[in-house]
Structures are given as C-alpha cells and as structure tokens.
C-alpha cells in the first residue's frame, strides 16, 4: 500500500470525490474486454450450432391462465414465454420452474417440451426465489467490488458459499492486497452506491454453459477460479456455467435473476478480514443485505436488517484444507 492510497483510501470513487482523479483501472478494462470477447465468441457459436429450427410445446401453468406456447427449441427462453403473458408477468418473474422440479434461468434457452411455471417473490413458499435472489446479490457484489478498487490494489475474487438468507447477509470472499484494512463508513457507503448504480443500469444477466478449457481460458488470470474450475467441471458433466452482467463474468451454478433491476434496496454492510490459510494476500468477506424492489419495507425495519448484516456471516470460510469450491458451487448444492 503506497502513501497515496493511504491518504485517500483504496476506493476509486472516494478519491475522486476528494478531488484527486485517477485514471480508470486499465488492466481490469483490458481483462473485461478479453473475457467478453471469448464469451461473445462462445455465445455466437452456440446460437449458430442450433441449425434447423424445431418447435417445442411449452405448457404454461399459472396466472393469468394456463396455456400452451409453441416455441423454438434451443432458442426460446422462459423470458420469451413471459413476454407473451404481458408486462406484469414478464417483469415480476424471478426464475422459471420446469416440470415442477428444475429451476431454470429466465434467459436460458429451453431444450425440450416441458411444463413451465414462473416464480415471483410473493408466492406462498418463495424459498427457491429467495435463494436465487440472494445468490444474484452475491454475484453482483463480486461485480461491484472488482470494479471499485484502484489500479494499484491487487484483487482476486475467490468464491461465495451457497446462498442462505437465514445467515442474515449475502457474501463474497475476495482476496485483497491490503493489510488489515478496516473500511470506514464512507467507504462502505461508496460500495453501496456503486451497487445501486449497477442495479439502476437494468442490465440483463446472461447465462452460458461452456467447456472446462474455455472456462480456464476466461479465468486464466484468477488463481482461485483456475483451481476451482476442474472440480466444478467434474461434478457438472465437464461443463461450467458462467453468468455475465455488464462486462463482469463469474462462475455459479445458478440460476440467477433475469435482470439487475429486480434488486431494490441494497447496502454493503461490512467487510471483515477472514482467518484462512489461503496463500498470498489476506481474504476479506464482503457482506451486504438487499430486498427485491417488489417488497417495500419501512426504513426502521430495514435498519434492523442492516444492523444484523454487520455481524460476521456464518458461511463456510474458504481455505486450503477443504475442497476448493463452495457455491461455485456444485458440491455445496449436491449435499442439500
């Protein structure tokens, strides 16, 4: 940590507000570009490999009425079906449920004829939706954190454990090149603001299954992800599921929300140093709380939730002694 970052703090936006302008993190934009190109290439290849368009029958169950859609195999997504139902159903649907058992990302093409249900936040038992929401928040927290720090601070995303709303906060474990950093209130506020800005951009969250080699190529500059990928691929038929929001790409089992605008109120509550045996720089646990925009809560009650989110999350602490992947994520879910 050089003298400059000690004076102004490690975050980009804070230093800017303090009157000191630092150029955008060049290496991270280049990295984003490189990853984005590979992602776009693979995406294009997969859409072109569909070939002759075949039709499938999707039986929709739920409001406003049960109906049958004739959709395109490997092209149409649950989101396309939701568009036929109307704005309300398109915007509120968080995740699709195929054949009553498989949770399916809203932007992932449907491979076969199936029955379709669209889940939202106000259903009788929304535990699956809550988990999807919490996982997406972790993923977005990674996106926010990887773009918020200055160029001279090394940052490697490690992983986030399987989402648990009961733990009181969503988390992302990140390796940061800072010794004993204790974030100040303004720094946490800046991170929260960056999060809100990301959500206001209304970016769609894309999903793509890629080969192990392709995943290794995308994450070749991240030592932790490179270690995790072989394990993940072994538990998922040699495939790795990637999610992309804006320029940021991450590994997760999914599913995620269809769009960042589902996140309403959000706060980055605390950043705590973890006691692990991971080599290199210390690992910090970034914690936050959020609510979907469809759920309104008064500020006092939300304050209580924020207060709870400051306590160190009980999620599994990553380390060399256990198996490498957490939510990244197949082992954790297989045991559930």
């Amino acid at each position, binding site marked *: 940590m050089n003298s400059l970052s000690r004076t102004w703090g490690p975050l980009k936006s804070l230093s800017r507000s303090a009157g000191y302008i630092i150029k955008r993190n060049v290496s991270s934009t280049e990295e984003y570009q490189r990853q984005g190109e590979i992602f776009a290439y693979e995406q294009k290849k997969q859409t072109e490999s569909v070939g002759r368009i075949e039709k499938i029958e999707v039986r929709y169950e739920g409001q406003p009425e049960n109906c049958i859609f004739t959709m395109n195999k490997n092209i149409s997504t649950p989101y396309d079906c939701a568009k036929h139902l109307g704005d309300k159903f398109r915007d509120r649907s968080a995740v699709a449920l195929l054949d009553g058992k498989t949770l399916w990302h809203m932007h992932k093409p449907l491979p076969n004829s199936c029955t379709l249900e669209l889940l939202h936040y106000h259903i009788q*038992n*929304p535990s699956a939706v*809550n988990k999807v*929401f919490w996982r997406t928040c972790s993923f977005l927290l990674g996106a926010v954190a990887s773009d918020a720090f200055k160029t001279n601070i090394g940052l490697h995303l490690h992983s986030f454990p399987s989402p648990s*709303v009961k733990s*009181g906060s969503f988390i992302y474990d990140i390796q940061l090149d800072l010794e004993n950093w204790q974030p100040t209130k303004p720094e946490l506020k800046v991170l929260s603001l960056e999060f809100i800005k990301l959500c206001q951009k209304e970016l769609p969250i894309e999903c793509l299954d890629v080969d192990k080699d392709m995943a290794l190529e995308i994450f070749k500059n991240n030592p932790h992800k490179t270690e995790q990928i072989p394990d993940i691929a072994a538990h998922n038929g040699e495939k790795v599921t990637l999610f992309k929001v804006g320029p940021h790409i991450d590994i997760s089992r999914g599913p995620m929300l269809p769009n960042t605008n589902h996140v309403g109120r959000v706060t980055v509550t605390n950043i705590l140093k973890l006691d692990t045996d991971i080599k290199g720089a210390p690992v910090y646990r970034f914690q936050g709380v959020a609510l979907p925009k469809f*759920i309104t809560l008064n500020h006092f009650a939300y304050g209580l*939730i924020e207060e*709870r989110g400051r306590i160190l999350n009980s999620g599994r602490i990553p380390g060399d002694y256990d198996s490498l992947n957490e939510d990244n994520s197949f082992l954790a879910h297989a045991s559930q």
Partner: protein
Amino acid sequence: MNQAEVSKLVSQLRIKAPTRLRKFRNPKGPEERLNKMRKTVTALVKHERIELNFPRAHEARMYAERLISDAIRYGDCHKSTMEMADYWLVEKQLVHKLFKVLAPRYEHYNIACTRLLTAPRPYPGPEDKKAILELRGNPYPSLLPDTTSNKNLIHNILLDEAKKAYRTRKYAEIAAKIVAAEPNLEKPVVAANSDQKAGE
C-alpha cells in the same frame, strides 16, 4: 402587528395540504366547487371507500380530514363544528355517524384517518387518473397485499433473524450481569436453602 399563527387556531392535519386549491370546471361559480366537494365527502363518510378521479379525491381528502379532526377535537356539543358537519354532510343521518362512529374510531390514531391510493385506469378508455379514497379501519378487505403474515417472504426471514440476534445479545448481557453479581448472590441463596431445611 403580530399575526396569529394559523397552527394555533386550527389543529394540524396529518396529510400534506397543497398550497393552492384546484379550480375544477365550475360553470355555476365557486359555490358549485364546494357543492362537488360536499358530495364527495358525504359519499366517503357514507361508503367508507370510493373510487373516483384522482384530482377530486385528492381535493376532497383535505375537507374530510378537517371535518373528522374537528369532530374529534370539539365533540358534538360545539356549535360551529356542528354547523360544519351540517354543511359538509348532505345526508343528515351521517352527522350521527361522524360523531358517534368515526370520532371514537380515530380518537387515538397518530396517522391520517383517510388513505388515498392511485388506481389503474381502464385501457383502452378515458385517460383520467383514478384513485381510491377510503377511511382507515373500514370493514372491507384490504386493498394492499398482505406482506406480514407469510413468514417465508424474504424480508420476514431477515427480520426474524435480526430479532434472534437481538435476543441472543440481550440474553448474553443478562447472563453477564448475573455472573457479575454472583459473589453477592451466593450467600442469600445458601441462607434460603438452610431456611427451607429448617422449615422442614
């Protein structure tokens, strides 16, 4: 010369009153505007929930709030309040309802006694904005979705966890206090035991 403060002459309403009044379309002059308002206020007191165009609802809400507020403050033995009630409620049997039902109902409220919600308009159809104006505590089913009773909703889970964390902290504090007071407590406990034995 000091001007009397308005807030001391009339009770403050719990809604935000607009700075200017709406004019509406009144071929018969300003009195007609008040007649329209009377009609709406009467309907509100009578039916407790009405659906109408937004501007009219927003305007009539003020008069209804003032009427109920005065009824609570002065009661039915106050001459000018009774005159006001007589003027604003076109159907006279509602005067009884105002003083005997509504005033006791809102006596201990610390929020406004009416609620104004925007309502969807028919499409295709006239483009006027619609609203629903209701008296709180009415007997009809709620217009807003119930977000409190379902414990599985995400905010309820989070609030439950916050509650648990708070309780654990409080119990820990109490336990710490007891431990701190332990040396003093020990003797009386022993004494009580020996007393019991003596009693037996």
